[in-house]
């Protein structure tokens, strides 16, 4: 059974996006991704004001096991980062789709969102990736 919130969209590198009412987009990593990585111990955040291009590595999540890049799902400017992760990186494990968000961006080309995967498509993608 899926527990992915229906308002999220995903990319193949396991980031999720949520379109907010003000047109900004919140970004995090999927619950599946945090589970694969294991206990988070450090998150390197992007900088507010940083211009990102889709697929660009812009943050790093580090678990006890390994460091893993977080990619910009779409292009745009970083408008806010989740400062709380500096002291509590485990929030990404505990609430990947909520309090464990990583940054918020203002899309430069909102049409890019249309190309992202719906939760169902992401789950299918995960199933194929597992084999």
């Amino acid at each position, binding site marked *: 059974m899926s527990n992915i919130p229906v308002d999220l969209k995903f990319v193949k590198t396991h980031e999720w996006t949520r379109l907010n009412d003000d047109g900004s987009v919140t970004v995090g990593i999927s619950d599946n991704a945090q589970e694969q990585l294991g206990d988070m111990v450090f998150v390197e955040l992007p900088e507010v004001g940083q211009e990102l291009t889709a697929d660009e590595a812009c943050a790093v999540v*580090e678990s006890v096991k390994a460091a893993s890049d977080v990619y910009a799902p779409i292009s745009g400017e970083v408008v806010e980062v989740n400062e709380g992760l500096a002291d509590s990186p485990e929030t990404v494990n505990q609430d990947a789709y909520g309090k464990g968000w990583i940054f918020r961006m203002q899309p430069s080309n909102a049409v890019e969102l249309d190309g992202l995967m719906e939760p169902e498509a992401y789950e299918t993608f995960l199933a194929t990736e597992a084999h």
Partner: protein
Amino acid sequence: MGSKTPLYDEHVAAGGKLVDFAGWDMPINYGSQIEEHHTVRKAAGMFDVSHMVVVDLTGAQVGDFLRHLLANNVDRLKDKGKALYSCMLNESGGVIDDLIVYYLRDDFYRMVVNAGTRDKDLAWLEQHAGAFSVKVQERPELAMIAIQGPEARAKVLEVLNDEARAVAEPLKPFYGAFADGDWFIARTGYTGEDGFEIILPAAEAPAFWQQLKAAGVRPTGLGARDTLRLEAGMNLYGSDMDETTTPLESALAWTVAWDPQDRDFIGRRALEQQREQGARQKLVGLLLEDKGVLRNHQKVVVENNAEGEITSGSFSPTLQRAIAFARVPKETGEACQVEIRGRLLSARVVKPPFVRNGKAQIEL
């Protein structure tokens, strides 16, 4: 699919996340590596280490054989059951493997070596045993469980039968003894905590594991085993030393027995030469002052732009800081920098262990 230990089904049943380790399907964790780590520091955890290789060495000249084979000296083992940690070197002083050897009788020693080096270790043992008429017998039919933590000893004693308990209870640290048949109980480990390592027949391992679990001992994966041994200041073969590095370059000089001077162990001449000239590099502990995580193979920059490399790096769950071992030039002082994703972060050279018996051993 890799080899399976006798406890494979237990790992699957406990939700163990299995990964390949030296050709074995082993649990890296059972959910949370960090929680497992803390359990070993505060209570008791158990590790399936059945992939490790038990080798029994027998024969009238087995003592002479080991005096020639090992950089540490088995003559230090005066009492039966006493264990010795040693490196086994090649002629150039490089480390073929690190191991534990137990003195059981004048004609019987038991050795435990690493899984990843099994084939070359056995070949090396065979190659040198002939001259001493020593019989080298691997014991793949035995399983091995390490139970570690401040509560480990009490919990094991609670679970053992009367005969085995009578053997285990009086054991002092770094001693082992046979109990019931093929049960061998040793007060040793790889975590910096008290506990036992128990070698037992494979068929009896699952039931014993379940009894320990029922007594409240938490299954703990190889992930936590690695962060625990790193905090405890213990080297990992293949990461911190190998055939291209000597014990003197690996913070293992304390394991080399130079006396008596006429003991002709393999690698001695090369080590003596290095000792006279002074090893050019050394293995040290690092504590990252900045935020981030130290990882194997990151570059270390010291005075005069000389460079070293992290051999084992991780996040220390006990200290809540990144720690590492690094091989650096011998002149390296107290401060250095580590290159992480193109940036140089500040680190401090410290003397391991980082943690012993649940307590920090360095200033943060």
